[in-house]
């Protein structure tokens, strides 16, 4: 069977258009002033939220990318888990999903069937329904979902509303991009690859369900922009975030791979983008790379009051054992993000 990866120059969220480039384009767009649009693209949030009536809003998102793994079923699961994640990170529950498919005319349809089955598994696991889709021929295969969910408009988890004094929790280990880079370089060990694939396939549903019993100040999910870019978005103008590099969860081999310079283009783009906004202190190079590392289907990154953060962490660790408290929210400092 023809390799999925052989058709792709870059896969997963590492292929996202850079955050700087994107905001340049979006700055020229008109602002849509519908009061029912509670969260739009001007907020750089994870998904759009539109109010239907007093106690119901819908949350809508779309995500697709080219393969980062060779196994078609796994790719389908990862792409679907990644697309569904934006609904969870806003505090919503997925209702239904549509497939988005680009596929080369000369590739076997059997692999496409596997991709779609993998996606369908995750939609079922999310408790949502698949209700259609759209497919076209393309040079590189791509797959993803448009997902619609429901949400209590009083309980939206925005990405940029942390409160000074809060603690920050990261639910999944970092290092996905580095392990996939090592795989591309044929230098990854099987255990690391399995850890990365298993993490990418895992729905953020379970961590989000635990979070619903606690007050959440802000939440987002980690994407190809890397932890630090999302931390900066979360900090906004009103706060600074301090991250404790020694507390960061990561796939163990990724630390070694980063030290061996198995590094991605996307991480360097992320590093360039964050220049001037992050004070890295004397953080070792490998940990810096992990914080710039592009994540595909990354974990949730959330801010919660210190009084309940430990209890919330324990609850999340029942479903995401590698979750950690990785930092806290400060009043604005010299730098948007401080790493200590």
């Amino acid at each position, binding site marked *: 069977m023809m390799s999925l990866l052989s058709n792709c120059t870059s896969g997963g969220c590492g292929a996202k258009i850079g955050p*700087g480039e994107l905001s340049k384009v979006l700055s020229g767009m008109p602002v849509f002033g519908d009061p029912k649009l509670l969260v739009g693209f001007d907020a750089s949030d994870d998904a759009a939220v539109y109010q239907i009536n007093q106690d119901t809003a819908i949350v809508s998102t779309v995500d697709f990318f080219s393969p980062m793994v060779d196994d078609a079923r796994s790719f389908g699961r990862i792409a679907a888990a990644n697309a569904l994640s934006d609904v969870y990170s806003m505090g919503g529950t997925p209702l239904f999903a549509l497939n988005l498919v680009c596929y080369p005319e000369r590739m076997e349809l059997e692999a496409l069937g596997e991709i779609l089955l993998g996606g369908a598994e995750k939609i079922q696991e999310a408790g949502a329904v698949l209700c259609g889709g759209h497919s076209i021929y393309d040079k590189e295969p791509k797959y993803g979902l448009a997902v619609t969910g429901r949400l209590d408009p009083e309980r939206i988890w925005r990405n940029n509303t942390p409160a000074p004094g809060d603690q920050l929790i990261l639910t999944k280990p970092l290092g996905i991009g580095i392990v996939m*880079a090592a795989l591309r370089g044929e230098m990854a060990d099987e255990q690391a690859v399995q850890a990365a694939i298993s993490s990418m396939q895992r729905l953020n549903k379970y961590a989000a369900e635990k979070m619903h019993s606690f007050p959440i100040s802000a939440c987002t999910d980690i994407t190809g922009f890397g932890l630090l870019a999302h931390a900066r978005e979360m900090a906004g103008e009103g706060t600074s975030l301090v991250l404790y590099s020694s507390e960061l969860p990561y796939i163990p081999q990724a630390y070694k791979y980063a030290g061996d310079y198995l*590094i991605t*283009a996307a991480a360097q783009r992320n590093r360039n983008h964050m220049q001037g906004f992050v004070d890295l202190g004397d953080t070792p*190079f490998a940990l810096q790379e992990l914080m710039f590392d592009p994540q595909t289907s990354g974990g949730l990154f959330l801010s919660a009051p210190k009084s309940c953060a430990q209890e919330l962490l324990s609850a999340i660790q029942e479903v995401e054992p590698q979750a950690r408290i990785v930092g806290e929210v400060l009043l604005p400092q010299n730098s948007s993000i401080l790493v200590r």
Partner: protein
Amino acid sequence: MNNIDCIGQVCPIPVIRAKKALESLGEAGGVVTVLVDNDIARQNLQKMATGLGYQSEYEQKENGNVEVTIVAGEGCAVESCATDGDSGLVVAIGRNSMGEGSQELGQILIKGFIFALRELVPPPTHVLFFNSGSYLTSSDSNCLEDLRALEAAGTVILTCGTCTNYFEITEKLGVGEITNMYGIVTAMAGAKRLINL
């Protein structure tokens, strides 16, 4: 000399190939050149070289390709890093025009100033760009050719990253490196003579 052609290859492949070539040189050391087709790969190669204690430099080639030269081992040095005849001159440029009065004239003057810097022998050790000066190193600048010539002559070209982020031109850097305020202060403090523009 090891020449590695990484045109069409994405990171980490160029870095892995360069690192393997450098390791195969063993104790004796030597020179590895890597041809890549994007500046991010160049940045990753130099990050690896610096991290492992190698000297490196790069040269823009046609079609947007970049040739990165990495030198491993004692006794080998990249030519432009030689300190003989070091001018000790640092030029700090904090604006994209020269003098007060007409902005249009000022922009013609600054272009002429940077062109004239090429004629200095020995060349400046550093040219620093900040605030609106950072437009002069971005890909739209009409000074790129002169700055690249300076760079080829051994001048370190540094642009303030806070400034390029502010103007949203970080991705368009056309010559030299991004630096932070510490880098700017270090270059100024190390200057024998400093021209502030």
